[in-house]
C-alpha cells in the first residue's frame, strides 16, 4: 500500500534511509488509526498529530543518523591522520584567506558607514568634463549646489590642522572645519555638550570647538569640566562646547577636533579656490540621478556666470559609502579575488583527495551496501565526513585570519571615516560559515556521489582498484586541470604586481632619501603672519641645526616631496600667447637656500635661491628641467620670465625633476620660490614647514638636539611628523607591498596545492594501473619508457590547465590594469616565468609517481591479481 502524495511529502522530513525502510509502515499505522477514527474532529486531530510526529521524529531520526555518521567519520578520520591533517590545513588556509580578505572588503567597501540614514548620504565632488573626476569644491559652487531641491541638507568640511599649545607638550592636531549642517546630517551628536549651530558659522562669532573623544581623554583626562574651557589652536582661543563620541570619525579616521567653517566675504570671490569636501543628504525618495541632473543644470548656470573658472565644471555625485578611492578599491578587490582563487584551488584539491580516498574505499562501501545500506545512506556518510573536516578547518581558518588581519591594515585608506579597525565580527563569521558550507558541498558532495555510483557486488570483487584509469578518474583529471589553471591565474597576477612594484621602486625619485630626517613645524597664524617673522624662525633654527656635529646640510620647504603631492598652480609664460582652455600647471614650493643640496636634487644650471632674494629684490624662481623643456625647448631657460602665485618671476636656476607625487604618478613640473619672496600674510599654506636635515651618520640621533633647538627658538612651537625621508618614500608603496606580500603568499600556496594535486592524481593513477604497467613491462617496455608515459600524462594535464589558465589570467590582468604601472597584462617576462613555474610544478608533482611506476616489479603486480 503506497502512501498518498501528502504523506510522502511528510516523509521527506525523515532521512532517506529511514524513509525507505519505514515509510510504508508509518503509513499503514496512520491508515489503521484513520479507519478507527470517528468523526471529522478525530480525523483532524489525527492529521495534526501525524504532522507534529513527522516533524519531531523526522528531526530525531536525522539526529540519530548524524550522530552515527559523525561517530563513524571520526573513527575513519582518526585512522588516516595524514589525510585528515592535510585536508584540515588546506581548508583552514582557504577559509582563513577568505575571512581575512572578506573582513577587509567588508570594512572598506561593503558595510554601511556608521552614520544615520547613511544610504541617503552622497559625496558631491567637483569634476570637469569630459572625464569628470573627483576634486574638492569651491565655496561658490557649494553655495549654489545647496539650492538643489533633491537634497534635504548639504554640508561641507575642510581638512585642517592646528597647533595646540598650553596642554602639556605643544602638539600638532588634525582636525576639520565643518559647516553647521554637517554633524546633524551625519546623525552625530556630542557625547557631552552641544553641537554647532548656524550661529557658530557666522563670521565674527566667538570661536568654538568640538573635541574628539581621544583628544578629550589625552588632553583633559576625560574631565567634563573641559566644557567651557578655552584651548589655544594656532594662537587663537577656542571655547570647548562639546566632545564627540569615541566611535565618531569624519572626514578622516584620525580627525581630532572640529571647528565651525566660516566663509568670509572673499571666500566667494574666487571660484577657482577649491578646497571643500561636500556631503549631501538626499530627500526621502529622491534618486541619485535626480540629484545629479539638478546639479548639472546648476553647473550650466555657474558656467555662464564664471566662464573662466567654472569652464566645463560639473558636480559628481556618488553614494558616500562608495566614495572610496578607486585605487584602494582595486587593491582590496584584487586581494579578495586572489583569496577566492586560493579557496577554489583548495576545494579542488580536497575534492581530489576525497575522491581518491572514496575510490580506495569502494570495497568497504560495497560491503556496507551489501549489508543493506542504501546508496543515499553511503553518500550521506561520506558527505558528513567532509562536512566534519570542513567545519573544523573553517574554525581553524577563522582563527588564522584573526592573526593575519592586523597585517592587512596598511590597505585601509586614511579617508575612510570609520574609527574602529577591521575585525573578525559576526558578519565575517557568517561569511566564513557560508564559505565553509559551500566548500564542503563542493568537495564533499561531488566526490561522494561519484564514488558511490554503481556500488554493487561487482565493486566488492573489483576491490580497491575501482575501474582502472577509466571514467571515474576523468573527474580527477578535470579537477587537476582546473587547479593548474587557477594557480596560473594567481602566478600571473602576482607576477604582474611584482613587476609593477619593482618598476616603481627602480624609478629615480629625483632626490636621495637616505640619511635625511624630516620634521614639521607648522607656524601658526597670526603669530607668524609676517614673512620676516617666519624667516627669522627659519634662519635661527637652520643656523643652529647646521652647526650640530654630523649635520651635512639642512633646509626648510613648504612640503617635502611625496609627503604632500598637491600645491598645484597655473602659470603664465611671459611672451607666450595665453593657451586656450586649461592653463599649464606646476607644483609650487617655497624653499630656503640649501634645499636642493639637502635633498640631493642636482642643480643643472644657474644658482640656488639665496638669502638675498628678499621682497625688495627682483622676484626669482628655480624651475625643474621638465618645466624648462615644456616652455622653452632648445632655449636657454635662465633669464626667462613667467608668472605664478601673483607675481612675474625670472628663472635663475634649473634643477633636476623630482617625483613630488610619489613614484607611481607623473608629477607636474616643479617651481621653487625663495622663502622670503612672499607678501606678508599671503599663501600661509605654502609657508615652509618641513625641516629636512641630511646627516653623515644615523640622522635619528639628531632628534633630541633638534627638539631642543626648536624649543629654544619658540617654546610654543609643536613638532610633528618626525620621519625619515626614506620612510616617506617607503610609505608610498606600503599598501601595494602589503597587498603583494599577501598575493605572493596566496600564489605560493596555490603553487604548492596544485603540485600536490598533480602528485595525488598521478600516484593514484599509477597504483590503479599497476597491473597494466606490469603487463607492459613484461612485454618489453623499459622503465624509462614507463616513466616517460606517466610524465607525459602529467604534462598533458598541465598543458590543458595552461591553455585555460592563460585565458583566465589575461582577463584577470585586464581587471588589474588600474594597479599596473609600466607593465601590460600580457607582459612577456611575467608570462614566461609563470609558465616555467607551472612546468616546475608539474614536474615536481609527476616525478615521484613516474619514478615509482618505473620501479614496479612486473612479477609482483601480476601475481597480486
Amino acid at each position, binding site marked *: *500500500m503506497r502512501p498518498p502524495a501528502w504523506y510522502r511529502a511528510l516523509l521527506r522530513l*525523515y532521512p532517506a534511509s*529511514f524513509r525507505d*525502510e*519505514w515509510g*510504508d*509502515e*508509518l503509513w*499503514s*499505522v*496512520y491508515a*489503521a*488509526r484513520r479507519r478507527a477514527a470517528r468523526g471529522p474532529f478525530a480525523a483532524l486531530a489525527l492529521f495534526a*498529530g*501525524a504532522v*507534529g*510526529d*513527522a516533524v*519531531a*521524529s*523526522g528531526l*530525531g*531520526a536525522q539526529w*540519530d543518523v548524524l550522530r552515527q555518521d559523525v561517530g563513524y567519520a571520526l573513527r575513519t578520520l582518526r585512522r588516516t591522520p595524514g589525510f585528515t591533517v592535510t585536508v584540515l590545513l588546506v581548508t583552514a588556509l582557504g577559509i582563513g584567506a577568505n575571512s581575512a580578505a572578506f573582513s577587509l572588503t567588508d570594512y572598506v567597501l561593503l558595510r554601511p558607514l556608521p552614520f544615520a540614514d547613511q544610504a541617503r548620504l552622497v559625496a558631491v565632488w567637483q569634476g570637469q568634463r569630459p572625464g569628470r573626476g573627483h576634486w574638492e569644491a569651491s565655496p561658490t559652487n557649494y553655495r549654489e549646489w545647496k539650492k538643489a531641491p533633491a537634497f534635504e541638507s548639504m554640508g561641507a568640511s575642510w581638512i585642517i590642522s592646528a597647533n595646540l599649545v598650553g596642554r602639556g607638550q605643544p602638539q600638532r592636531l588634525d582636525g576639520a572645519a565643518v559647516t553647521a549642517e554637517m554633524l546633524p546630517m551625519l546623525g552625530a551628536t556630542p557625547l557631552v555638550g552641544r553641537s554647532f549651530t548656524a550661529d557658530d558659522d557666522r563670521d565674527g562669532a566667538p570661536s568654538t570647538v568640538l573635541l574628539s573623544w581621544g583628544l578629550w581623554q589625552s588632553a583633559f583626562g576625560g574631565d567634563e569640566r573641559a566644557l567651557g574651557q578655552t584651548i589655544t589652536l594656532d594662537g587663537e582661543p577656542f571655547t570647548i562646547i562639546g566632545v564627540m563620541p569615541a566611535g565618531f570619525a569624519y572626514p578622516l579616521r584620525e580627525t581630532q577636533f572640529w571647528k565651525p567653517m566660516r566663509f568670509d566675504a572673499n571666500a566667494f570671490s574666487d571660484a577657482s579656490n577649491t578646497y571643500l569636501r561636500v556631503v549631501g543628504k538626499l530627500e526621502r525618495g529622491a534618486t541619485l540621478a535626480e540629484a545629479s541632473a539638478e546639479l548639472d543644470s546648476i553647473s550650466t548656470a555657474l558656467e555662464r556666470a564664471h566662464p573662466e573658472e567654472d569652464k566645463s565644471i560639473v558636480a559628481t555625485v556618488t553614494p558616500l559609502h562608495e566614495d572610496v578611492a578607486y585605487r584602494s578599491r582595486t587593491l582590496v578587490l584584487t586581494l579578495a579575488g586572489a583569496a577566492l582563487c586560493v579557496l577554489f584551488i583548495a576545494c579542488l584539491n580536497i575534492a581530489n583527495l576525497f575522491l581518491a580516498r572514496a575510490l580506495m574505499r569502494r570495497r568497504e562501501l560495497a560491503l556496507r551496501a551489501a549489508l543493506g545500506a542504501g546508496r543515499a545512506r553511503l553518500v550521506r556518510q561520506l558527505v558528513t565526513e567532509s562536512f566534519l573536516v570542513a567545519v573544523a578547518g573553517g574554525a581553524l581558518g577563522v582563527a588564522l585570519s584573526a592573526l593575519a588581519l592586523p597585517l592587512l591594515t596598511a590597505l585601509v585608506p586614511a579617508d575612510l571615516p570609520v574609527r574602529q579597525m577591521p575585525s573578525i565580527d559576526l558578519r565575517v563569521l557568517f561569511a566564513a560559515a557560508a564559505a565553509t558550507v559551500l566548500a564542503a558541498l563542493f568537495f564533499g558532495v561531488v566526490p561522494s556521489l561519484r564514488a558511490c555510483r554503481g556500488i554493487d557486488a561487482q565493486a566488492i570483487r573489483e576491490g580497491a582498484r575501482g575501474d582502472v584509469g577509466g571514467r571515474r578518474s576523468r573527474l580527477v583529471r578535470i579537477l587537476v586541470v582546473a587547479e593548474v589553471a587557477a594557480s596560473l591565474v594567481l602566478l600571473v597576477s602576482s607576477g604582474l604586481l611584482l613587476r609593477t612594484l619593482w618598476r616603481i621602486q627602480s624609478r629615480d625619485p629625483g632626490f636621495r632619501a637616505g640619511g635625511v630626517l624630516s620634521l614639521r613645524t607648522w607656524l601658526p597664524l597670526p603669530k607668524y603672519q609676517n614673512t620676516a617673522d617666519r624667516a627669522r624662525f627659519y634662519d635661527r633654527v637652520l643656523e643652529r641645526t647646521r652647526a650640530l656635529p654630523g649635520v651635512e646640510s639642512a633646509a626648510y620647504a613648504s612640503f617635502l616631496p611625496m609627503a604632500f603631492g598637491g600645491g598645484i598652480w597655473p602659470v603664465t609664460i611671459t611672451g607666450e600667447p595665453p593657451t586656450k582652455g586649461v592653463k599649464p600647471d606646476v607644483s609650487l614650493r617655497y624653499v630656503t637656500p640649501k634645499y636642493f643640496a639637502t635633498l640631493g636634487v642636482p642643480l643643472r644650471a644657474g644658482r640656488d635661491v639665496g638669502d638675498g632674494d628678499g621682497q625688495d629684490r627682483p622676484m626669482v624662481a628655480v624651475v625643474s628641467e621638465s618645466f624648462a623643456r615644456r616652455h622653452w625647448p632648445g632655449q636657454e631657460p635662465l633669464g626667462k620670465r613667467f608668472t605664478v602665485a601673483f607675481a612675474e618671476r625670472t628663472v635663475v636656476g634649473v634643477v633636476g625633476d623630482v617625483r613630488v607625487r610619489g613614484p607611481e604618478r607623473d608629477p607636474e613640473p616643479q617651481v621653487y620660490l625663495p622663502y622670503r619672496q612672499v607678501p606678508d600674510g599671503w599663501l600661509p599654506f605654502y609657508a615652509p614647514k618641513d625641516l629636512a636635515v641630511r646627516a653623515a651618520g644615523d640622522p635619528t640621533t639628531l632628534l633630541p638636539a633638534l627638539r631642543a633647538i626648536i624649543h629654544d627658538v619658540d617654546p610654543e612651537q609643536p613638532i610633528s611628523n618626525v620621519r625619515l625621508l626614506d620612510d616617506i618614500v617607503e610609505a608610498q608603496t606600503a599598501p601595494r607591498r602589503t597587498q603583494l606580500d599577501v598575493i605572493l603568499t596566496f600564489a605560493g600556496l596555490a603553487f604548492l596545492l596544485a603540485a600536490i594535486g598533480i602528485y595525488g592524481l598521478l600516484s593514484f593513477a599509477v597504483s590503479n594501473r599497476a597491473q597494466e604497467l606490469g603487463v607492459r613491462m613484461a612485454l618489453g617496455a623499459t622503465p624509462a619508457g614507463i616513466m616517460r608515459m606517466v610524465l607525459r600524462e602529467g604534462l598533458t594535464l598541465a598543458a590543458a590547465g595552461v591553455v585555460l589558465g592563460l585565458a583566465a589570467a589575461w582577463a584577470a590582468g585586464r581587471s588589474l590594469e588600474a594597479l599596473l604601472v609600466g607593465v601590460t597584462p600580457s607582459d612577456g617576462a611575467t608570462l614566461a616565468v609563470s609558465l616555467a613555474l607551472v612546468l616546475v610544478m608539474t614536474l615536481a608533482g609527476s616525478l615521484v609517481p613516474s619514478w615509482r611506476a618505473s620501479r614496479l616489479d612486473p612479477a609482483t603486480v601480476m601475481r597480486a591479481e
Partner: protein
Amino acid sequence: MSTEDKVDELLPLPPVTFHILLVLAEGDRHGYAIIQDVLAATDGALRIQAGTLYRSIQRMLEQGLVVEKHTRPSIGEDDERRRYYRITPFGRQVAQAEARRLAQMVRLARACGFVPSKG
C-alpha cells in the same frame, strides 16, 4: 564485552523502549498493535506516535533487543504485508534488568515515604 556489560550499557532504558519490550514479551506484534497494546496497558496514558515507534524500533533492531520476524503469523491474525517484531533473549534480559532497576528505585522512594505502601 560480557552480556552483562552490554545490558548495563543500555540502562536506563527510554520509557518507550521499555513499553515496547513489555508488550512484545507477551507475543509478536506489528507496529500498530504495539501502539494499541501500550495504550491499553497504560489506561490510555501513553499513545506512542508512529514516528517515535519506528525510530525506537530501528534503534532496538540495531541494539539487538528485537528482531523482525520473517515467518507470517497464523492465518487470519492480520494482513500479510505487515512486519512483525519479536523480543530477543537479549531483549528479555535488558527488560528484566530495567525492571529490577525500577523496582530498586521504588524501594528507595518508599523508604523515604515518597510512595504509599500498597494498602
